[in-house]
């Protein structure tokens, strides 16, 4: 049979954000796939250099619409570390609460998207209806549904009252019931199993080699979670399980996310019931002393890394964001090859892609005035040279 090349994107019903996948098809089977990034570059890192630390909060929150809290928390942890500020315990607890609420809202959203991509619209409608509950929680606590703006440098903006606490717990109880139903559904419905089992296989060694993070890695049996590996906020005081699954496929990613929801509910209740007393914020000076800082954070989609360089003024000198999708996208091409065309939307959706977080790697040479996208070989050569100058030789690696 002759081969056809099908473009999936940048505009395509399966994609929520512009991205391009070129698929080479032989009949219904995929023999080759390439991923093209860069339709969504917004120049946020450059913009961050022209704003003060406080103004950047609003910018960083808008890196991603779903993990808005993840990005601000990582950024703020960097700033607070450089400013050597002691963040109050209560503020850290409230940030943890928001982080877990955000994970619940993101995973429920993902469940709906996965249902939609496998052509199961009822699941999509049901999960998104239930997701309203957690959005209501967030709105009640912060006043906003998506960009909560709860973080501020040195603490959080709003405190939690006893009344709000009761409201959140009531809604979480409802969600626990619903989530158990979805877990049952995912495990029992034959068409869901038929569409997800053995689809988008990612063996553990490939996952490690391609640097998969978050639920994508955990579904390949890799116990990798920043909350456990290097606890931040108050995660070292919380009791939760690290969920892994060893089927290495979309089904595993579905199960991991569903079970993580249950863990998140547990954590939310634990945090709410043991909120430490004290102030919710401290004063931090406008100017941050020179220094560099890197922090990572377990966003709903995986490990989020921020690098911050301060130069003593009230504006950062450099801010670098590595969103989890960028780490996971490398695995997508591998997962698609040899699969069916019908599975492509699901495989892409299974990493829970967030393209607008990701797109920021275009090389522009002002001297020659041309744009260039570096391939793997060139990047490897460049990094080897870079380390050679520092005295480390990675040529044989």
């Amino acid at each position, binding site marked *: 049979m002759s081969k056809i090349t099908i473009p999936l994107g940048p505009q*395509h019903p399966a994609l929520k954000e512009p991205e391009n996948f070129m698929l080479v098809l032989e009949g219904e089977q995929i023999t080759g796939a390439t991923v093209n990034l860069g339709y969504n570059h917004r120049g946020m890192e450059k913009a961050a250099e022209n704003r003060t630390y406080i103004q950047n909060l609003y910018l960083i929150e808008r890196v991603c619409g779903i993990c808005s809290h993840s990005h601000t928390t990582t950024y703020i942890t960097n700033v607070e570390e450089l400013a050597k500020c002691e963040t109050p315990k209560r503020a850290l607890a409230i940030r943890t609460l928001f982080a877990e609420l955000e994970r619940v809202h993101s995973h429920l959203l993902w469940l709906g998207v996965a249902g939609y991509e496998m*052509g199961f619209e009822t699941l999509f409608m049901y999960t998104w209806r239930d997701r309203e509950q957690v959005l209501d929680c967030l709105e009640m606590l912060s006043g906003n549904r998506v960009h909560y703006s709860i973080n501020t440098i040195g603490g959080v903006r709003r405190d939690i009252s006893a009344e709000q606490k009761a409201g959140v717990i009531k809604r979480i109880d409802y969600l626990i019931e619903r989530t158990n139903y979805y877990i049952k559904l995912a495990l029992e419905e034959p068409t869901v199993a038929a569409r997800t089992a053995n689809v988008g296989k990612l063996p553990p060694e490939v996952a490690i080699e391609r640097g998969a993070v978050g639920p994508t890695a955990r579904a390949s049996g890799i116990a990798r979670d920043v909350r456990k590996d290097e606890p931040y906020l108050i995660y070292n005081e919380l009791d939760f399980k690290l969920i892994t699954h060893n089927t290495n496929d979309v089904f595993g990613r579905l199960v991991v996310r569903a079970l993580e929801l249950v863990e998140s509910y547990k954590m939310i209740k634990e945090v709410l019931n043991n909120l430490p007393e004290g102030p919710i914020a401290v004063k931090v000076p406008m100017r941050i002393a020179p220094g560099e800082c890197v922090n990572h954070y377990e966003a709903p989609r995986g490990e989020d890394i921020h690098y911050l360089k301060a130069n003593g003024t009230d504006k950062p000198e450099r801010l670098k964001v590595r969103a989890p999708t960028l780490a996971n996208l490398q695995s997508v091409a591998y997962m698609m090859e040899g699969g*069916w065309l*019908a599975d*492509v939307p699901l495989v892409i959706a299974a990493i829970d892609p967030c393209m607008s977080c990701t797109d920021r790697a275009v090389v522009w040479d002002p001297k020659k005035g041309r744009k260039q996208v570096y391939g793997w070989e060139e990047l490897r050569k460049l990094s080897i040279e870079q380390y050679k100058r520092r005295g480390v030789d990675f040529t044989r690696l």
Partner: protein
Amino acid sequence: MESIIPLAYLIIFPGFLFLAVYGMFLQWVDRKLCAVMQNRMGPPWFQPFADFIKLLAKEVIVPDAADSAMFRALPYFAMAAVITALVSIPVSGPAALFSYQGDLVAVIYLLTIPTVTFFLAGWSSTSPYSTVGSMRVLTQLFAYEVPLMLSLIGPAILAGSWNISEIAAFFTAHPVLIPSQLLGFLAALIALQVKLERMPFDIPHAKNEIVGGQFTEYSGRLLNFFLLAVDMELVVGAALVNAVFLGGSLGFAGWAGIGVFLGKTLFITFLLALLKVLMARIRIEQMINFCWKYLAPVAMAQVAFDIFLKFKLG
């Protein structure tokens, strides 16, 4: 005057006008039922009519690479085949408008024509999405056609006739035998769902995989008539299943006959809508496996049972 009456039958009832209006109404019923089952509001009753009028006003774009004449003619072929099929199926009374021995086979083949036009439509559009879509249409055709045919043969054997009106009359006379056709009825319903390319078998135009599938390049009026043909196919398919398995109008004629027809087709639409919301869309190779491994043997078992029953009854 003599020649005007058959023409009126063809154009008004139970022909084009009735089919179009009732098809759009069933489309709304289907959408509303799904919406309610999925915890949504669903569209208002006039939505299909509004969509129809809106699409009529839109520009028609024919791809440069497509054969313009064929591209434009195909939707009308699809619609004409569906209307012709209805003529041999009893609607308002015990007898069809034009019934003859062997019309069951003729109707099945007339109902295959729309699927073939879908294939040609996709293939002549020459865009990658529609090419893949049209290949899927053909694959699906080979998967469901045999189970559908087999499941309709069972009642025909039992009634000892290839005439749809006679089969309906047979079951009207022997209503006790209707429950014995349950397996075949279910097989026919599922095969009909595959034929109509509805969820979970909407593989040829699965929107998150290949955009619009075979209809990707169609727009405006032409797309409108294709969609109308699909709506009409739902009515004709439901009417066929009703006549073959459920005894048609059950002996009622006139307004009562129409009432029975509407009630039973609405019930069949409800069953089809239920199928639609219950499952995730399956892959094309799973669909073929399902049709040949499960659906065809089930229909075959019904045929064997009917032959046995026929001998038993004498």
